[in-house]
C-alpha cells in the first residue's frame, strides 16, 4: 500500500523492553522489514524506548531526518502513549502524529512461539505504518474551570471533604437529604478499634461545617438535575420545606415541648424506631443544623388543617413557618464529590433469622443506638420486651458473602461485631457468642482488637447460623431464642439459647444510588456501588471528568478508609480547580457541517448527551467538552458526516488492510 504523498516521512522504533519484547520477538528482523516500507525514512530498535536516551533518539531523528510521522512498537499505549506524545511535542511535531504498536502485552507476553510472534508483530507494525500516514494533527483545548464544588451527602465522607476544600478557601455546597448531617457515624456510640467516642470526634467537625463561611449547607435537600461538564456543571437542587426557619431557630426545643401532641407518638427515624418523637422534632441533640423540623406527614396542621399551632406561639423567635414551600436552587460548580454512603441490608429478606418476628432480634445498627448514651434507653440495654439480656448471640455476615443475598464481604461487620460484643459485655455482663464464617480483621490494630476480645471471654463459634427459633427442645431453652448452628471447628451441630440476637447486617448501595448515577452520568459496578475509574490508580475518580466519589458509596469501608477517600477526592478536585482550566483531549467527534442531512440518528445514542440539533440550521452539532470520544455516533452516522478524531475511516480501514496484507 502506498500513498502518493511524497511528504510523508516515517520514523519507526521497536523497543526491546529489556528482554520483555526482544526475548520473544526478533526485533532486528522487524526493523529490517519495516525499513523497506514506503515512506519509512528511519527504522531502529533500541533497548528502552521510554528511557531518556530512547526519547532523545526519536527527537534527534525528527530533526535530522525531517520525520513527520512516528511509530513506536513497545508496550501498551495506556502506559507510554503520553510519554511518546510528549517526545514528539518536544521535537516540534504534533503529538497526534504518533502511532503505537503494543508488541509487549499483545505479542511477547502472550506467545511462546518466537517465530509466530515475530510474524504477528510484523503484521501489527505494518498496520501502524499504514495507519500513521493518515493521522492528522490535532489541538488540545482548554476550558475554564468554575471554582466552587458540590458535595452530595453529609456523612463523615462529605463532611471531611467539605472541610478540606473550605479550609483551602473554596466555596462548597454540601447537600444532605436528611434533616441533619452526620450520616451513620452520628448514630454510633464508640468506634472500632480504638473505642473512642464517635460523637466526640464527629460533632466538632459537624459544628465546623456550620461555622465555616465557605460552606453552604443545605439539609433536607436533593440534587435533581446536573447539566454541563467538568469545570462547568449547572446543578439544580430541590430544598424540601422544613417549616422552621433555620436562620432563626436556635434549637431551644420550646416548640417541641408545647406541641399539641403531649406524648411523642411517631417512630423516631434517628433511633430507628426504638423510641418515639413528635411531629416537630430535632433528630438528636448535636444535630447540624441544630434546628427543629416539622414532619408534614404527622403534623395535625398539615394532616387536618386545624391545629392550635402551639409550637408557633411557643417560639419566641418566630421561626415556625407553615407556609414554607419546596424550593429549586440552581448553582454553578466546577467539580462534584459524591458521598452518599450506604444503607444496611434488610434482614427480613431472610426470615430464618426471625427479624421482625421475634422482638428480641435486633440489627447491629439498632444496637448501636441501644448502647448509645444519648440513645432511646440512655445506653442501658433494655430489650423490646422490657427485660435485660443475660446472653447475647451476634451473627456475622447477614446479607453478605452469600449466594442468596449479596456476594461481597461488607468489610466492617466483623470489626463492628467485635466492637458490639465488647460494648454489650461492658453494658450487660451477659454471655456473648459471636457466630462467624471467617474472621476478617485486616487493618491497623484490628487483629490486636480481636485478640483483646478473645481475652474478654467472649465466645467465638465458627459457623453460619442456620436458624433463629423460639421452639425449645429442652427446659433450658424455654423462653429463649435458640440459634441452630454447625460449629465447623468442633464438627457438631449446636443449639445455643440466648435472650438477644444481633444481626450484623452488611452494607448495600444507598437508596438513591441508581437515580444519582443517572443524573450524574456515572457508572455503577456490578454490586451497584458507584464505579471508580480505576480500582488501583484512580479509586476516587469516575468516568465522568470532574465527578469524584468518596466513602461507602464506592463500596463498603470503615471510617479511616472513608476519610482517606474523602481527603483524596478533595485534593483531586482542588488540583483541577487550581489549574484554572481543564484540558480536553482532542479525540472527540465533530460534524462535517456542510454534509449533515440532519437525520438526527446520532442524538439519542450519545451516552454523554453531547449532541444537539440546531433548529435553525437543521443540522446536529457536538459539544466537544462533553464528548468523551467513545465513537458511538460516528459508527451510527448513516451518511458518514460524524467524524471521530484519530479514528477516521481511512485510518481504520488502512490499518486493517495493513494487518491482513503485510508482506
Amino acid at each position, binding site marked *: 500500500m502506498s500513498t502518493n504523498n511524497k511528504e510523508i516521512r516515517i520514523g519507526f522504533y521497536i523497543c526491546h523492553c529489556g528482554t520483555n519484547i526482544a526475548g520473544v520477538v526478533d526485533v532486528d528482523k522487524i526493523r529490517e522489514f519495516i525499513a523497506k516500507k514506503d515512506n519509512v525514512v528511519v527504522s531502529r530498535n533500541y533497548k528502552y524506548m521510554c528511557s531518556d536516551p530512547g526519547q532523545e533518539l526519536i527527537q534527534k531523528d525528527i530533526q535530522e531526518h525531517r520525520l513527520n510521522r512516528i511509530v513506536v512498537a513497545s508496550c501498551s499505549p495506556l502506559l507510554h502513549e503520553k510519554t511518546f506524545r510528549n517526545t514528539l511535542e518536544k521535537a516540534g511535531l504534533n503529538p497526534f502524529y504518533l502511532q503505537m504498536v503494543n508488541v509487549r502485552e499483545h505479542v511477547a507476553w502472550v506467545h511462546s512461539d518466537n517465530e509466530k510472534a515475530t510474524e504477528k508483530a510484523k503484521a501489527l507494525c505494518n498496520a501502524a505504518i499504514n495507519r500513521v500516514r493518515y493521522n492528522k494533527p490535532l489541538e488540545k483545548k482548554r476550558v475554564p474551570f468554575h471554582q466552587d464544588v458540590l458535595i452530595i451527602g453529609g456523612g463523615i465522607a462529605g463532611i471531611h471533604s467539605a472541610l478540606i476544600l473550605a479550609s483551602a478557601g473554596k466555596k462548597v455546597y454540601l447537600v444532605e437529604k436528611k434533616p441533619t448531617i452526620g450520616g451513620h457515624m452520628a448514630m454510633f456510640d464508640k468506634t472500632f478499634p480504638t473505642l473512642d467516642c464517635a460523637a466526640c470526634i464527629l460533632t466538632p467537625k459537624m459544628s465546623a461545617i456550620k461555622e465555616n463561611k465557605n460552606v453552604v449547607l443545605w439539609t433536607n435537600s436533593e440534587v435533581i438535575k446536573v447539566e454541563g461538564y467538568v469545570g462547568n456543571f449547572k446543578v439544580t437542587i430541590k430544598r424540601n420545606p422544613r417549616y422552621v426557619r433555620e436562620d432563626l431557630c436556635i434549637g431551644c426545643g420550646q416548640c417541641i415541648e408545647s406541641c399539641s401532641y403531649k406524648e411523642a407518638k411517631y417512630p423516631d427515624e434517628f433511633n430507628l424506631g426504638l423510641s418515639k418523637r413528635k411531629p416537630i422534632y430535632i433528630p438528636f441533640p448535636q444535630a447540624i443544623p441544630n434546628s427543629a423540623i416539622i414532619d408534614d406527614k404527622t403534623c395535625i396542621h398539615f394532616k387536618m388543617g386545624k391545629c392550635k399551632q402551639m409550637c408557633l406561639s411557643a417560639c419566641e423567635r418566630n421561626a415556625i413557618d407553615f407556609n414554607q414551600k419546596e424550593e429549586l436552587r440552581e448553582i454553578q460548580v466546577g467539580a462534584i464529590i459524591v458521598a452518599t454512603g450506604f444503607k444496611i441490608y434488610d434482614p427480613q429478606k431472610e426470615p430464618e433469622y426471625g427479624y421482625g418476628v421475634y422482638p428480641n432480634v435486633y440489627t447491629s445498627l439498632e444496637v448501636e443506638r441501644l448502647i448509645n448514651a444519648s440513645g432511646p434507653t440512655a445506653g442501658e440495654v433494655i430489650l423490646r420486651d422490657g427485660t435485660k439480656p443475660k446472653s447475647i448471640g451476634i451473627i456475622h455476615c447477614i446479607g453478605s458473602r452469600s449466594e442468596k443475598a449479596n456476594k461481597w464481604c461488607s468489610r466492617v461487620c466483623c470489626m463492628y461485631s467485635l466492637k458490639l460484643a465488647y460494648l454489650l459485655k461492658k453494658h450487660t455482663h451477659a454471655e456473648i457468642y459471636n457466630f462467624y464464617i471467617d474472621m476478617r480483621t485486616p487493618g491497623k490494630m484490628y487483629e490486636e482488637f480481636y485478640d483483646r476480645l478473645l481475652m474478654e471471654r467472649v465466645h467465638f463459634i465458627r459457623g453460619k447460623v442456620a436458624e433463629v427459633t423460639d421452639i425449645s427442645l429442652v427446659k433450658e431453652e424455654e423462653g429463649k431464642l435458640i440459634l441452630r448452628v454447625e460449629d465447623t471447628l468442633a464438627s457438631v451441630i449446636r443449639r445455643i439459647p440466648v435472650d438477644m440476637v444481633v444481626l450484623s447486617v452488611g452494607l448495600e448501595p444507598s437508596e438513591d444510588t441508581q437515580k444519582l448515577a443517572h443524573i450524574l452520568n456515572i457508572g455503577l459496578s456490578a454490586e451497584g456501588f458507584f464505579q471508580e475509574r480505576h480500582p488501583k490508580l484512580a479509586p476516587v475518580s469516575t468516568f465522568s471528568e470532574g465527578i469524584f466519589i468518596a466513602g461507602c458509596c464506592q463500596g463498603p469501608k470503615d471510617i479511616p478508609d472513608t476519610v482517606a477517600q474523602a481527603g483524596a477526592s478533595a485534593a483531586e478536585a482542588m488540583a483541577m480547580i487550581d489549574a484554572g482550566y481543564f484540558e480536553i483531549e482532542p479525540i472527540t467527534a465533530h460534524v*462535517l457541517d*456542510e*454534509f*449533515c*442531512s*440532519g*437525520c*438526527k*440518528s*446520532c*442524538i*439519542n*445514542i450519545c451516552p454523554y448527551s453531547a449532541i444537539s*440539533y440546531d433548529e435553525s440550521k*437543521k443540522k446536529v452539532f457536538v459539544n466537544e467538552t462533553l464528548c468523551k470520544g467513545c465513537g*458511538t455516533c460516528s*459508527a*451510527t*452516522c*448513516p*451518511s*458518514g*458526516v460524524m467524524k471521530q478524531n484519530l479514528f477516521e*475511516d481511512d485510518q481504520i*480501514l488502512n490499518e486493517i488492510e495493513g494487518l491482513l496484507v503485510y508482506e
Partner: protein
Amino acid sequence: MSSKPKVAFYWCASCGGCEEAVVDLAEDILEVVKLVDIVFWPVAMDFKKRDVEALPDKSINIAFINGAIRTSEQEEIAYLLREKSQLIIAFGSCACFGGIPALANLYSKFEVLNDVYIESPTVDNAAKFLPQTTSIDNNGKQIELPEFYSQVRALDEIISVDYYLPGCAPTPKLIANTINMLLGDNLPTAGSTLLPDIALCEECPRKDSKPTDLSITEYKRICENLVDPEKCLLAQGFLCMGPITRSGCEALCIKGNMPCTGCLGPTSRVVDFGAKAVSMFASLSSGKNEEEIEKNYAQVMDPVGTFYRYHLSKSLLRGKLERGI
C-alpha cells in the same frame, strides 16, 4: 459524419427500467438527439457490435452503460465501449453497485441455474439441461454462447468508470442534468457520483416531523400497516433508508408515501451501505442490550434484501463464494 458529440447507450444485466428512463425524457429526448449523434443503442436502434468495433478508439464521447455484469457478453461489450469511449458513465444502480441482480451473489452459480432451469415449477426440463457455452445450430454448425459468470459485478469492477449516476432508475431530471453537464465545459471531478453528497433527509418534506429522541420498538412493513402521509416514516417504524442514501431524487418515493429503499446509494464517505444501515438501525432500536436489539431485528423480513438491496456487490463481504462446482 457530423461533428456532434457521439453517444452510446448499452444495457447489461438490467430490467430495462434505465432504458425506459431515457425514453421518459419525452420531448427532451428530441433535444438530446438534436445535440448528439447516437452511435450505439441496441434497445432502440439497429446498430451491431461490428459498427462499434469499426469506430476509431476514443471516438465516442460518452457511453452510458446500465445494468450489472453477469455474462461474458456484457463484459466484452463493456471492454469494447471502454476502448472506444472518452467517458464511461455507470448509469443506474445496477451498473453502479450491482443492484438487484447482485442479490443473486448470495447463491452459487449452480443454485441459480438449478433454480431457474430445473426446480422452477413452470419449467419442463426432464433432461435437466443447463445453459452451455457452445451449441450446435440447426445447420449442424457449432456456435459460441455467452458464459454465465459465478458472480454479478458492478461496472467498475470490470472497467474503469468516469462518472456514476445511480438510481433505480435515475429520474429524467437527473438524466437531463447529467447530459447537459457532460456536454458542457465544466466537467465534474473524475470518478465522482453526479448527485449531492448529502443524505436524503436533507430534502425530505417530512424532515421536521422526525423526533430527536427516535427509538424504534417495532419495525413495520408497508404492506401490513397504514402509513401516515405526513410523518417521518422512520418515526412510524418503517425501514426508510433516507438517512443513509444520497439525495437528488427530490424524495420521490417519500412523496408517494413509500419509504426510501436506498437506490441512490451511500454518500462518498460511507464504504458499505448495508453495514451502515445495520448499524444505524441498531442504534435507533429501543433495545437496550444485544438480546433486545436482536429481537427487534428479527422483525425485519429480509435483512440482506432490505439493507443491501442495491449494494451487495460493492459491500465489504460481497456475497457467497462458489465452492466445489
